């Protein structure tokens, strides 16, 4: 039992255990044509990734439409977090990572050798599973991306702090205590603060890696409302293992399994009328 679980989490191990009925034959990827109707902000192009000898992503190709919320769903270990962390190259920090293929942010290659990773990350924002406010005041947390760019004009910082905190629906709760430590906020507030920080520098794409997994239902629903309200203004790529959440907040949904992109299309269609059997099994809870 335990071994089986571990195998499931390690994509290369799949060949060694008995294939499920729907896994027989060649892996199929179905991307709905509607996806290509939108202007993409981010294009993932035949992207593969290895942790040492273990391959975690297999030839993923998907465009992320501008101004929409795109959800990545799939069972644990399917590579959705790896994929999102590859977008801002946080996986570079892990030893022994190799990649193949490329991604493009508004046409600019992300993995070309000439790319300055720091400049690249300045064009994106990221929200993590666990809220990670910095050990400083609420205000300084929000304007951190500007501070590291050398921006010290008070008016610019004040304006950014207010705009970002309003975007993150936190302004009314903290406007009286911007100078207090961010660590004194509640868990949900901390996560919204991290969202404010992620949008402070007006990113071209906002990456969210299971932003609600450590929160209670009330805080979760506030964050979901927030994500819903960010559409149009920001392009959001969100990883979640909560299918209801994906259904509620996203315009497009991509289902991943064992490192492969399985099906990708308009959220409603994925959930109501998936084209592949594998997607349907996962959506309906038959496995995963």
């Amino acid at each position, binding site marked *: 039992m335990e071994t089986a679980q571990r195998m499931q989490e390690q994509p290369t191990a799949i060949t060694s255990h008995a294939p499920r009925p729907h896994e027989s034959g060649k892996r199929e990827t179905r991307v709905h044509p509607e996806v290509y109707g939108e202007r993409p902000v981010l294009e993932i192009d035949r992207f593969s990734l290895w942790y040492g000898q273990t391959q975690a992503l297999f030839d993923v190709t998907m465009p992320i439409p501008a101004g929409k919320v795109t959800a990545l769903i799939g069972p644990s270990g399917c590579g959705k977090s790896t994929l999102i962390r590859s977008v801002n190259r946080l996986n570079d920090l892990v030893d022994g990572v190799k990649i193949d293929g490329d991604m493009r942010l508004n046409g600019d290659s992300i993995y070309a050798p000439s790319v300055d990773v720091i400049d690249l990350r300045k064009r994106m924002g990221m929200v993590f599973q666990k809220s990670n406010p910095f050990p400083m005041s609420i205000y300084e947390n929000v304007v951190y991306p500007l501070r590291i760019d050398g921006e010290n004009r008070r008016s610019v910082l004040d304006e950014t702090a207010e705009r970002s905190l309003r975007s993150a629906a936190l302004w009314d709760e903290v406007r009286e205590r911007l100078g207090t430590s961010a660590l004194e906020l509640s868990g949900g507030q901390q996560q919204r603060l991290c969202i404010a920080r992620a949008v402070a520098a007006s990113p071209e794409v906002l*990456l969210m890696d299971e932003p609600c997994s450590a929160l209670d239902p009330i805080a979760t629903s506030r964050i979901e409302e927030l994500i819903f309200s960010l559409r149009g203004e920001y392009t959001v790529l969100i990883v979640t293992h909560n299918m209801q959440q994906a259904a509620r907040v996203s315009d497009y949904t991509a289902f991943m399994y064992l490192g492969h992109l399985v099906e990708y299309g308009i959220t409603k269609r994925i959930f109501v009328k998936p084209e592949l059997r594998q997607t349907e099994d996962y959506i309906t809870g038959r496995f995963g």
Partner: protein
Amino acid sequence: MSPATKPPVRRSTPISGRGEPFVWLTGIGLSAATLMIVSLLVLVISNGTLTFWPAPLHELTLRDGTRVLGEVRRTESYRPGPEELEALSADVRRGIEDAGGVATRLLLRTGNYDLYGDDFRWVSEHAIASRREPAEAWLIERLEWGPAIGIPREIRRGAHPIADSAHGKLAEVFERERSAAAARSRRIQVLEKHDLGRINDRLEKGRLAVRRAAIQNGEGSPEHQEAASRADRLEHRLGEDHHRIQEQAALLRAQNDEVQVVIEDLDGRLITSRPGSEDPLRVSQVVRAYPANALGWAARFGVFLDRWVEFLTSEPREANTEGGVFPAIFGTFMMTVMMSLAVAPFGIMAALYLREYARQGPVVSAVRIAVNNLAGVPSIVYGVFGLGFFCYALGGTIDEIFFPERLPSPTFGTGGILWASLTLALLTVPVVIVATEEALAAVPRSMREGSYACGASRWQTIWRIVLPRATPGIMTGLILAMARGAGEVAPLMITGVVKLAPELPFDTQFPFLHLERSFMHLGFHIYDVGFQSRNSEAGKPMVYTTTLLLIGLILMMNLAAIALRTRLKRRFRSDHF
């Protein structure tokens, strides 16, 4: 059988897993440690605080008719030798034999070293015929020769008595004259040390300028001759001032010499101004005097406080066994601060590179092991290294480049507070490196990732996120390093600490901070007074008091650092996750 119908399995913890004996063991460990620390502290505090309390003077009349006067220092049992027993009367001997051959004796501090050749005297209990506490006996602390204990008869100015014991008022007149004499002594000191010192300093600078010109431009060169003539003019001009100041000092000194106090011991022997002299003691030689048995509680407390103030604020005298330890307090404090200033940046930078930048591998592991092992090198080895590297190599080079005119007498090329501090910094740097590395490793990965995701460079992440977050842990390392460094003596003895250095490394003379000066240190002071002084019995109370002071100083510096750390911690504390 389905699980529901099976009888339930009772689980139990084996005796070896219950852990009570281990709880007891841990408790015993803690209590043993606490007991040792508490008893050490009680010993030091009780001996250290009571040192300055004025003890009563006992007059003992012995069976052979001699009388002795002094403070009872302590009482102990001893076993008299056969010869001593032989000399005793029969009933006394029987009494001792009944007690198992054990007798009691007192250690009496008689003072008057110049008269008796010793400060202390053992008196056997059975030899005492009677004892009393004479109200007229005084204890007189002198600048030299330790305390005098005796009975004051009169006070004279020149040949004329101005007060005597028969007409009373002796105490008031004495106190008035003593403070006047003390004021004159202070004035003499200012004249000789400050004013003359300044003149000598300028003369020395002139002479050094001549030497420098000779070294740079050659003997007999125009520059050399010009410098020499300038030095001559300076000497001529300052010579007059020098003479005038010396005359002033001599006048004050003559006034001080006039006022004398006649004190006799119980046998009527006069306590003189110096051994071999016929003159009575001068009032200006007296630091403090009081009729020990006639004092009320308030007056005793006054003497107690006065002694503490002297201890904390003045310079030592009498080969360090009397007077104050201010230069040692200052030296210890300044050296610890300088050491912390040196060790903090070095240790933190080394740990940062080791943890954040270096590629983890065998080389880094080897470096880490080497650093950890450095903490186990005996401190005297660091002292030898400091002497060889800092004092001789580095200091010698500095002297050759910047102070060639003073050679062969060294400026930086010998022990000094800078080299001592750097040696101790070297000694304590492993502690800081290890603690900093731990603190850096404890910064959550999520924080670094959050910073990188915002587009921060590695340096910005370290400087703005990692270091602030690790500061409390780094502070802990610094506190440990400081505590270790402040209590260290061995390496200091060869890199700059001396027995007596009344010139502080920081004063009002340009350039104010004299890093090349040797200094005094409380730890070395304890060693010096306890084991290197003429009379270790006389120095013993001083050892306790100095130990108390050193512990107090380290405690205070640690408390300050801990308070700072707590404030920082509060800033970084997280109640949620």
